[in-house]
């Protein structure tokens, strides 16, 4: 068995892993060890279960079959599987977006709704983006029109998903020319399922093009709707201080952990936790107060809007319960382990499921309805308070939570960089053009017990920072970086290169910008579009000196994100390859041929430092193509492009 330090780079996690092992509690890492060695056919993508002539497998080594019963080759089978992963990922993000659109519609239609339109400025800017007339209309009338239009995007049958118009012209031209401009969100997912049915699409590139179309419908559709409308309902985030790690669980308070993804639930729990009656009840039960903490993207949503501390990321969900101090773990959808109920039974913790779409073994189901949102949220918080006296053994968490600043958006970066009265991206573009910043990178994605927890996120980010690459983070990567202290403004002085330090000092930002949850990767798309629109860095996202990475990815959502980012022109490095390595032609397409079409492509590298160097080499290549000067200051990693170049001081400008 791997030692606990080989399982996680986070000291708090290591400590809790030791405790759990002592108590004989089985966690994701133990279950992974039980699964090893994992099926080679599955890893290579060579297994097809799409019809009952199968299951079929392609033999990668022996004299076994090279085709399935229908005649499908390794490339066809692997492409079908990969496209279905995109379908599931796009469906998950988009269903989240659909729920938010529904909530906004409710808020617009019902006067006494628990949800209100909290951000009129954002609402009006979206209305302008969508071409909705706002003059003479009330806020609720505008909200209704926006909600209806967004709602309609899911079932739209023809035309173009409306938010794609926020992309640079070059991206839209490429999408139209290759036939992947998404029509409607649901339609593209359905078409993947059709095409991957027995005997339909049997060309691996054509299958992947539909995968890309669905992924774009996610990034520039479902996910973007989720982000934009959440901002309208719950207020667009602004810079906010907070802290992160399981140490935020306070043994003297009623602890409610919210875990999952959709802010419509967590926002109401936040409101309920401030209810005077419930606070009084908590005191009555002997608690100091009510303490909220988030896990996974729910954590990011309430962190960036309310400064609610982050308890942890994906692989810490079980560990939170093992502290014995969590009175209720409240979950909705996505990335919630079905093991939680069993673990909660060993403690006093109430494990509460809330979504009609997601039920779990050994969970108490308290179904959440938007129409009675606050009432149900209060009932959930009350359940936690009443459970407080039932605590058994409490294992105190090491209190090493790190301070952080979160809550950056594509809009508030304008104001951060340019000030309130001349909001602009100019300083960012100028810094890149001058070489003070080498480039910008997005580090996103999940945790995966196949890799050391948090190690990839944190080490990759550090390597990028010291080479003057500004880093944007979302999702569980954001939480990993927060726990490592990289989201604190002071981190610039410890970890950033000279150029990036100058930027951070001048503007007052941390070197790592927290852009939100995993649907908020759509914010990264808008940041990139804004950089192109600002001018000086080419006419396309594909021209920008930027790169993306998901060092510890595991979910189907990450596959969808990967494809919409690559198809939007960004070179992207994944910590683990897609499960298609048994398909040579498909591998050539996603790591090569796809670049000719969209300007972005994939690379796979599990070592975070080597992966960071691949990203920097790409950034440098784009700098060179734009005829930008080499980085202003000497760089620890000179990279392939500038390896031969003389130092900056001697370059004639």
């Amino acid at each position, binding site marked *: 068995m791997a030692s606990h330090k080989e399982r996680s780079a986070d000291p708090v996690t290591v400590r809790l892993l030791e405790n759990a092992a002592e108590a004989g509690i089985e966690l994701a890492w133990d279950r992974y060890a039980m699964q090893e060695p994992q099926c080679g056919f599955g890893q290579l993508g060579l297994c097809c279960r799409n019809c009952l002539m199968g299951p079929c497998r392609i033999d*990668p*080594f022996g004299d076994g079959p090279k085709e399935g019963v229908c005649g499908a080759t390794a490339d066809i089978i692997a492409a079908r599987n990969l496209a279905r992963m995109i379908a599931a990922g796009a469906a998950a993000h988009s269903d989240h977006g659909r729920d938010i659109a529904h909530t906004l519609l409710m808020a617009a239609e019902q006067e006494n709704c628990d949800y209100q339109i909290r951000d009129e400025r954002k609402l009006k800017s979206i209305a302008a983006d969508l071409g909705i007339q706002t003059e003479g209309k009330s806020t609720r009338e505008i909200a209704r029109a926006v909600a209806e239009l967004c709602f309609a995007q899911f079932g739209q049958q023809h035309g173009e998903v409306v938010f794609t118009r926020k992309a640079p012209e070059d991206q839209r031209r490429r999408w139209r020319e290759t036939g992947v401009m998404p029509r409607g969100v649901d339609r593209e997912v359905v078409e993947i399922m059709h095409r991957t049915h027995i005997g339909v699409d049997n060309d691996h590139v054509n299958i992947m093009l539909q995968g890309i179309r669905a992924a774009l419908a996610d990034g520039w559709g479902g996910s973007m709707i989720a982000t934009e409308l959440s901002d309208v309902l719950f207020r667009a985030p602004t810079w906010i201080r907070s802290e992160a790690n399981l140490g935020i669980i306070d043994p003297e308070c009623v602890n409610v952990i919210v875990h999952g993804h959709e802010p419509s639930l967590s926002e109401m729990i936040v409101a309920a936790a401030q209810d005077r009656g419930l606070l009084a009840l908590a005191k009555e039960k002997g608690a100091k107060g009510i303490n909220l903490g988030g896990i996974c993207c729910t954590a990011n949503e309430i962190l960036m809007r309310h400064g609610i501390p982050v308890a942890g990321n994906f692989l810490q969900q079980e560990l939170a319960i093992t502290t014995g101090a969590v009175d209720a773990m409240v979950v909705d959808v996505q990335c919630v382990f079905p093991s939680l109920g069993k673990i909660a039974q060993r403690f006093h913790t109430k494990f509460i499921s809330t979504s009609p779409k997601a039920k779990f073994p050994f969970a108490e189901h308290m179904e959440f309805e938007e129409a009675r949102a606050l009432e149900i949220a209060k009932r959930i918080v009350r359940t936690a308070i009443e459970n407080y006296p039932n605590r058994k053994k409490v294992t105190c968490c090491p209190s090493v939570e790190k301070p952080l600043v979160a809550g950056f958006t594509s809009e508030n970066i304008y104001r951060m960089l340019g000030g309130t009265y001349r909001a602009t991206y100019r300083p960012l573009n100028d810094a890149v053009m001058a070489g003070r910043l080498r480039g910008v990178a997005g580090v996103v994605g999940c945790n995966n017990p196949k890799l050391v927890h948090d190690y990839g996120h944190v080490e990759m980010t550090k390597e990028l920072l010291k080479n003057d690459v500004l880093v944007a983070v979302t999702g569980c990567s954001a939480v990993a970086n927060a726990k490592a202290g990289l989201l604190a403004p002071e981190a610039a002085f410890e970890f950033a290169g000279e150029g990036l330090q100058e930027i951070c000092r001048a503007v007052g930002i941390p070197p790592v910008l927290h852009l939100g949850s995993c649907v908020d990767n759509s914010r990264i798309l808008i940041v990139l579009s804004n950089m192109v629109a600002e001018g000086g860095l080419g006419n396309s996202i594909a021209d920008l000196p930027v790169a993306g990475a998901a060092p510890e990815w595991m979910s189907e959502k990450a596959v969808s994100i990967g494809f919409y980012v690559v198809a939007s022109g960004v070179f992207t490095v994944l910590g683990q390859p897609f499960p298609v390595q048994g398909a040579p032609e498909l591998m050539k397409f996603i790591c090569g041929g796809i670049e000719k079409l969209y300007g972005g492509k994939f690379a796979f590298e599990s070592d975070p430092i080597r992966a960071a160097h691949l990203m920097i080499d790409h950034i440098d290549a784009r700098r060179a193509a734009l005829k930008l000067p080499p980085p202003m200051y000497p760089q620890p990693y000179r990279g392939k492009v500038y390896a031969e170049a003389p130092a900056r001081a001697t370059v004639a400008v």
Partner: protein
Amino acid sequence: MSRKIIAVDVTRCMACHSCEIACAVAHSASKTLAGALAESPRQRPRVHVEHVAGHPVPIQCQHCDDAPCVAACPSGAVSRAGPEEPVLFDSARCIGCRMCVQACPFGAITIGPDGKGVLKCDLCIERLSRGVEPACVSACPTRALRFEDVDQATRRKRRTASANLLSGETK
């Protein structure tokens, strides 16, 4: 201690072919799945899951005591170092006559990937030297393959058979 064998419980085999993949990877240079795929020529498995009347049966070299392949080999390429040792193949001595392939009663010896020499199970001696079970055994998700000594294997069988007898009596 008696000799350890790869014991097969055919009733547990789900025909997943994981043993075959693990075998090819274990005999590759890189020892990783992706690395093995990239090698040329690609390594091939020394264990084969055959199908008889709808039932999968994993078959590999039994490392017979009186091994016909050893007796048939004219050049000493197939040999064993001692009575407790596995039957091994030495490509440097092989003259390519295929006598061992014909002599093996299990069909467990096959022609090598480049057409030269033969492939046979070496009981993963490289892994055993590191204290790790043969690759096919560790890859088997249902424990249809076990690496155990003969006494252990037969005792297990006797116990199962006894339990079956008893439950039959009480019915």
